[in-house]
């Protein structure tokens, strides 16, 4: 019984059915939008300050105390900018694309449990829903790249499609490992069954999922579609004003969403001692995001063929092997000794990484033209 369902039951005792049904839904949607927007603001500020310190800079510190109003100032600036549509662009698609990018990311949050019972809908296929919805925004990115009628944007759009198709597979396969252990697709149940965080039980699955999501949210070192040194800004090169802001929101919303999913799947969600669950949840999101920022500020970018090779030659086989190992363990290992499982899985993870480092060649060389 989620909190919203309780709220609905309570309303149903005094209001007509339709109102009792619709009001909690609206309240829930508002809460989620506010949560996402606030988190995005916090995370933008956090990333800028955090990355600045990695780069021995200070970062934004002028607006408000310690610069915490910087995202708001940015938002105001971007709202008042002129909205430019390329003369030869596809105007309708150009207009729709930011929405198509942003809406699916909001929809992901419907199944993220941020507290015990605090979930908009406890779908019994929650994680499948996440996978399905999150790849929708790729369509939006492709639309944006197509509509801009710009060659950089087109290259970016095609890169997105290739990247998303490649990285969706290892991500899904590593999720399956978690699902096998839990025995359910519901996000609530996944959290409930993590008395030990799955990052310990499935280190390899975590690594694959983490790298795969880095690629899916277009973060360094897989940020090929907006590689600013090659194709400048990629798909949003011709966007300005509020449309650009939607892409920006979408990008960071994606980061928040995937931080939430990683937290839920591998870091035991809102569970934790002493502190209230919501605080634990936020702390874990921030830790995951800090890791992402740290990686972004250190590592150079991969090339497009190396990116593909990494997905198909390294991550996909590893994810399959990981799935088989987990399945075998779930089948044969007694559940009372999780420590054995942790040791075995760590050993397997190390062995596989070493093996793949030696065996596999990343990407091709020169093409004869």
């Amino acid at each position, binding site marked *: 019984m989620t909190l919203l369902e309780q709220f609905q039951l309570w309303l149903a005792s005094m209001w007509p059915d339709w109102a009792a049904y619709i009001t909690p839904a609206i309240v829930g949607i508002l809460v989620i939008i506010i949560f996402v927007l606030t988190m995005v603001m916090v995370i933008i500020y956090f990333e800028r300050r955090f990355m600045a310190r990695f780069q021995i800079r200070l970062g934004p510190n002028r607006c408000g105390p310690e610069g915490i109003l910087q995202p708001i100032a940015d938002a105001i600036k971007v709202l008042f900018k002129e909205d430019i549509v390329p003369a030869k662009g596809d105007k309708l698609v150009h207009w729709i694309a930011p929405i198509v990018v942003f809406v699916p990311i909001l929809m992901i949050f419907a199944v993220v449990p941020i507290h015990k019972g605090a979930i908009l809908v406890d779908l019994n296929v929650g994680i499948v829903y996440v996978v399905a919805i999150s790849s929708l925004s790729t369509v939006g990115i492709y639309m944006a790249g197509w509509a801009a009628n710009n060659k950089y944007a087109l*290259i970016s759009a095609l890169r997105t499609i290739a990247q998303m198709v490649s990285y969706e597979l290892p991500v899904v396969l590593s999720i399956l490992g978690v699902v096998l252990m839990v025995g359910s697709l519901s996000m609530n149940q996944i959290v409930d069954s993590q008395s030990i965080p799955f990052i310990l039980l499935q280190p390899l699955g975590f690594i694959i999922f983490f790298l795969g999501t880095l690629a899916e949210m277009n973060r360094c070192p897989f940020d090929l579609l907006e590689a600013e*040194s*090659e*194709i400048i800004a990629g798909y949003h090169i011709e966007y300005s004003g509020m449309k650009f802001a939607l892409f920006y929101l979408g990008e960071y919303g994606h980061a928040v969403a995937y931080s939430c999913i990683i937290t839920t799947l591998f870091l035991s969600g809102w569970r934790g001692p002493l502190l209230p669950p919501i605080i634990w949840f936020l702390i874990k999101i921030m830790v995951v995001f800090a890791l992402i920022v740290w990686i*972004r500020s250190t*590592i*150079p*970018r991969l090339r497009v063929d190396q990116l593909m090779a990494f997905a198909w030659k390294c991550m996909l086989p590893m994810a399959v092997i990981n799935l088989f190992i987990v399945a075998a363990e779930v089948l044969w290992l007694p559940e009372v000794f999780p420590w054995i499982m942790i040791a075995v899985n760590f050993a397997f993870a190390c062995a596989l990484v070493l093996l793949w480092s030696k065996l596999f060649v*990343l990407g091709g060389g020169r093409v004869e033209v």
Partner: protein
Amino acid sequence: MAIKTEPFILNMGPQHPSTHGVFRMKVTLDGEVVVDVEPVIGYLHRGIEKLAEGRTYTQNIPFTDRLDYLASMTNNFAYVLAVEKLAGIKVPERVEYLRIIVAEMMRISSHLMAVGFFLNDLGAMMTPMLYMFREREKLLDLFDMVCGQRLTYNYMRIGGVSQDIPDDFLPALKRFVAEMPGFIDEYDQLLAENEILLVRTKGVGVLPKDLAINIAASGPVLRASGVDWDIRRDDTYSIYDRFDFDIPIGNVGDCYDRYWVRMQEMSQSIRILEQAIAQLPEGKVCADVPQLLRPPIGEVYGHIEAPKGELGFYLVSDNSISPYRFHIRPPTLINLTALKDMVIGWKVADLIITFGSMDVCLGEIDR
């Protein structure tokens, strides 16, 4: 049914984050693969060669600052050496040392920029670049102390330098020389072993040895291709023969070798700086040269090993106060000749890093 594809032309630049200025490339792409590159330059052309014909020899020194604005000191150096060769001026001992100290500082500073921006082109999100800017900032402070500017130094004069170094200079430089090797080690730790950097740069953008000689590549680009040629040693100018330094040589000529050669050259420059500081004599800082110099009729080609390659000045004098012909041999323009051969068949991303590893400076190319 076979899918029909056709190459398309991508216009990179003049406004592009990684063209290091206003450089434009007409790139023909087949998907992501580069089929053809045509560099288009001239967006920063200021006609310095023509301007110099109407100014005196001393008045031309500020113009040389504006060639390769990341290495103004060596530009000054090359020009004054050429004029001194033309006019037969002997400079005092202290001046030779001062010039070599600032020129080697300039080489470190320029290589820091080159490597930093090369890594930025690789997509390392500014971090290594800002670390290198930190070190460069220390050097710029010292240049500022010596000559009052941070970018366009105008420090050298015909027959000497404009002013002696202040008292604070040598202690600060000594401290820099002591600290810098630690930072070079740090950069190595950050990136030299980084797998992604190796995957991206090894074997990419190879400039073979014979081609490198044929296009008269110079500087780190030539040495990375395995040619043992450094004008500081092979055509010694000033007093470089008194110092003990090694010349790092690459063996493949790929982007990684160019990066590696630059990193090694920084260490070698620090060795030269150590020796020069230790030997620095006292004395005058400028020879007696008339304000309006009239060199005898003749011509001279003076070249030095600038950070980016062989910087040459071809001067023709008609015994008047201004040069009759003032020609600059820009190293990076001539290095660029090979760009097309190096990138064809590689991806767009490789085009960017190959271009970045050549360390071009548009102020010098367009003049």
